[in-house]
Every structure is written in C-alpha cells, then in structure tokens.
C-alpha cells in the first residue's frame, strides 16, 4: 500500500500530539494516548467495493488501523461469523438477535487476537524483540500464540488463580508464563513497572494505543456483515471498557469516512458486567461517569475481573451518549447465559459470553431494549477456555455397556422421565 494514513498519537484528554512510539500516557495530564488518522485521505482511498474485494480478515480495514506498513502478524484474524440467532431471539422475546461470534477467532478463539495482531505488527515496526502483557487469560493466550508464530520472545503475566485451560493455552506456545499472587490490577501495576525498567513491548501498557485500536475491527465487521448497516442495539462485555469504547469509535469512523451514511439515530450501545466486578455498570446505573474501583473482584467471569477499568470513564460516556444502559449478572445467571446461547444457537461461549447473553436478557426484560428491536451480542471467547465454570452444573453422561438392549432401556427410561 505504501501510503500512511495514521499520523501520530494524541492525548485523548488535552489533544497534545505525540510521535508514533511505544508510549501510552500524556506526559502533561496523564491522559491516554490514542491513534490519530487522516480521515480525509482515508475517505478518498477506500470504499465498500475496495474493502469487499480484500481477504476476509480484520485487515480489510487496514487504513483505519495504526500501523505504517503492511500487517505482519495475525494475517488470518477476524471476519468471524455474524450469526442470525432466531432461536435465541425467540427465547429472549426480541425481534432480531445477531451473535458476533469471536469464539472462533483465529488463532486463539477470542477477540483478543484482533488487538494482538495490531499490537505485534506495530511492535515489529518499532523494533521490539520481546513482547509481553498483563492479562486475565485470553490476552495471554493470544500474545503467546502470535508471538510464537512471529518469532518473538514473549512474557505473559497473569493472576495465578486463572482457569487451568487458560494457563495451559499460554504455556503450550513456549511463552514465559508468570503467575502473580494477586488480582489483575496488581498484575497490571507490576507490568507498568517492568515496562519502564526493561523496555519490552507490553501490548497493553506501552503499546496500548496501537493494541486498543484492534478492537474496532469487531465493530467494522458487524456493520459490513449487516449489509453496511449500523445495528440498532449492541451489547458488549466490559472489563477495562476498551472494547466497548472502540466499537463505539468504529461506528463513528465508518460514518466519518463515508462507508455508511451519517445516521439520523446513532446505534445504542449497552455494557455488560458480572455483579462480582461491576464498577462500570454501577456508575452507569447511577447516571455517573465516576468509576469507583472494585478492590476485590469476585466472579467466575475472570476475563472481566478488572477492578480498576482503564477505560471505564470513556465506556460509561459512550453508553450514556448513545442512550444505552449497563447491566450486571450473578454467577448463576452467567452459567444460565452460557447454556442459553449453547442450547439455542449451538455456540459455546466462555463466561464473558454468558455475561453478555444474561445481561441482554435483563436489558430486554426491563425494556431497555424494546421487543421490536434488533440486537447484536458481542460474544468474545470460546467456552472451552472456561470449561470449569460449567463442568459442575452439566453432570456426567450416562454410561452403558455396548449392547442394544441396554441402550433401548436407557431410551425407555428417558422417554418415561420426559413423559413424567
């Protein structure tokens, strides 16, 4: 492509410009730095036809991502299915539901492959040989896998009490996995110190301005897959609040560069959290943007257990400015949400997906999403990553000897109990 559409970094608070380096905080007011693009140039360069001819990956929106050259990591990531979920819609009592199914994202089955593809492409452009992250699990999996494929050394730091399958899913790629005895927020604080001292490329610390932009591709894809149409309602799970903030930005940018017409009514965005760690939804419910940190997150949705959400303020603003709302759900409701999505649509989501589904149910029941609406659910990670959470409620399969007679009596028993 050769052309550069990404100009610089800019403080989201005061607007001070910064060079496109591995930095993430404004020196002046400590606001987060964000990628700044030449939208006029982008608008002149791309249109629907150009994008539709490109390979089906998140990189079809490359001009709206903060890299200088061609992508080099995660080339097959993204463009996951947007599934029309009629059975789930009927179960929830709403006209139309679509599931944006990032449980099948490449290569590590969560939306984090999007952010990591961008962060590691940029890390290579900036000359890093060692990449790292603070993670609640999914990010660690993705950094480990993508770094392995890209020939980069990786260090992933996680709370030591994560699900076994998430730990295994980082170890298998040969990453250096370090469990930290403490909640995610303590891991994150330590990573800030390590990034400062060792000069590694921490995808969600000093590379965060690049990393975070990858989440926009989920929003771009939703719109393109709906036939270049904005959804009426989108329900997004919230940990740091970054994904929600970036989906909001994606919807805005598509209008800004003319890929879709300026909408008369902006799409409504709702946030979803687990009650055991719900600082953002608590603020939204109080109609506030003041986020009170949760010192002791306690939920089975460990991937969402961030007590001090870095983008909590921006997420709550995005929700409120679109007329959305935020909900939170108990562990029991999360498991019901996982089962509902699995039993109606055949999609097995991790606990965060249970949070999204269960919160959507609440939003519909309370009328925040009206019955005649069309809703997109952002389902962000695969159920096998948090199998422990449902293992306890699913029970065991019935076992018999390999004889037809035994099977027939099992079947008779099953119909008898169904009739009763």
């Amino acid at each position, binding site marked *: 492509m050769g052309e550069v559409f990404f100009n610089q970094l800019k403080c989201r608070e005061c607007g001070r410009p910064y060079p496109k380096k591995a930095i993430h905080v404004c020196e002046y007011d400590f606001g987060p730095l964000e990628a700044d693009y030449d939208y006029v140039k982008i608008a002149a360069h791309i249109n629907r036809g150009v994008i539709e001819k490109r390979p089906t990956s998140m990189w079809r929106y490359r001009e709206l991502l903060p890299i200088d050259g061609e992508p080099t990591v995660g080339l097959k990531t993204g463009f996951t299915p947007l599934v029309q979920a009629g059975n789930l819609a009927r179960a929830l009592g709403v006209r139309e539901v679509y599931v944006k199914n990032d449980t099948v994202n490449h290569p590590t089955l969560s939306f984090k492959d999007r952010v990591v593809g961008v962060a590691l492409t940029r890390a290579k452009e900036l000359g890093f040989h060692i990449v790292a992250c603070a993670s609640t699990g999914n990010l660690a999996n993705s950094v480990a896998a993508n770094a392995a494929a890209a020939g980069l050394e990786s260090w992933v730091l996680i709370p030591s009490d994560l699900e076994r399958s998430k730990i295994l899913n980082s170890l298998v790629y040969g990453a250096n996995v370090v469990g930290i005895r403490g909640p995610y927020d303590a891991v994150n604080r330590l990573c800030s110190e390590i990034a400062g001292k060792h000069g590694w490329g921490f995808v*969600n610390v000093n590379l965060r301005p690049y990393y975070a932009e990858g989440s926009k591709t989920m929003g771009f894809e939703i719109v393109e897959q709906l036939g270049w149409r904005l959804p009426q309602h989108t329900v997004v799970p919230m940990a740091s609040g970054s994904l929600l903030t970036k989906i909001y930005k994606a919807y805005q940018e598509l209008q800004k560069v003319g890929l879709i017409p300026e909408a008369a009514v902006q799409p409504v965005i709702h946030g979803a959290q687990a009650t055991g760690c719900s600082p953002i939804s608590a603020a939204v419910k109080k109609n506030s943007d003041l986020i009170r940190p949760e010192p002791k997150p306690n939920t089975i949705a460990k991937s969402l257990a961030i007590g001090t959400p870095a983008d909590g303020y921006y997420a709550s603003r995005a929700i409120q400015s679109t007329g959305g709302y935020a909900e939170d759900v108990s562990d029991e409701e999360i498991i019901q949400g996982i089962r509902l999505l699995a039993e109606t649509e055949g999609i097995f989501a991790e606990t965060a997906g249970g949070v999204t589904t269960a919160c959507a149910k609440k939003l519909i029941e309370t009328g925040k999403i009206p019955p005649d609406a069309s809703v997109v659910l952002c389902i962000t990670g695969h159920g096998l990553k948090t199998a422990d959470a449902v293992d306890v409620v699913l029970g065991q399969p019935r076992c018999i000897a390999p004889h037809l007679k035994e099977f027939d009596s099992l079947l008779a028993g099953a119909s008898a109990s169904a009739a009763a």
Partner: protein
Amino acid sequence: MSILVSIPTPLRTLTNNLDTVETDVATIGAMIDDLEKRYPGIKDRLVDPQGNIRRFVNIYVNGEDVRFLENQETPIHAKDEVSIVPAIAGG
C-alpha cells in the same frame, strides 16, 4: 506536625526531584495551592482549567481516593498519608 505528600516520578521535575514534600494545611484543595506556591506549575498538572482534579490524576488520603471522600474539601491532618498517583492505563 506536618503532612507528607508523595509525588509521582513524572512530577518530580517540578519538586526539585523530591519524592516526598511536606505541607501543613487543612484540606486537599489548600494543599494543591500550597504546593503551587513552592513548586510553580504543579497545580496545572493536577487540576483542569475548570478547577477539577484531572481525570487521570488520583489523590489518595490514607489510601482512599479523594473523589470518594470530599474531593478538594477533604480534610487532612498531621500523620495522614497523602499520595498523588497517575492512573495506570492497561487491560
């Protein structure tokens, strides 16, 4: 007796590299003005043009964010520990 205020690394260029400074005023708001008198320029880094503590600056009194106390009216006393900490971005 005075109150110790810890200063984060990025602001130490303003405090002659001191990581801790002392104050003996009665509230957080007065502390900010007191620091400004001795270390000109520091107030603008802590407080926005509307006079509110900047969104990504946290000021803690004994570990509690003053936003959840009485903001700039929060009283401070001898032996209180006051710390100024930039928000950590991540996650």
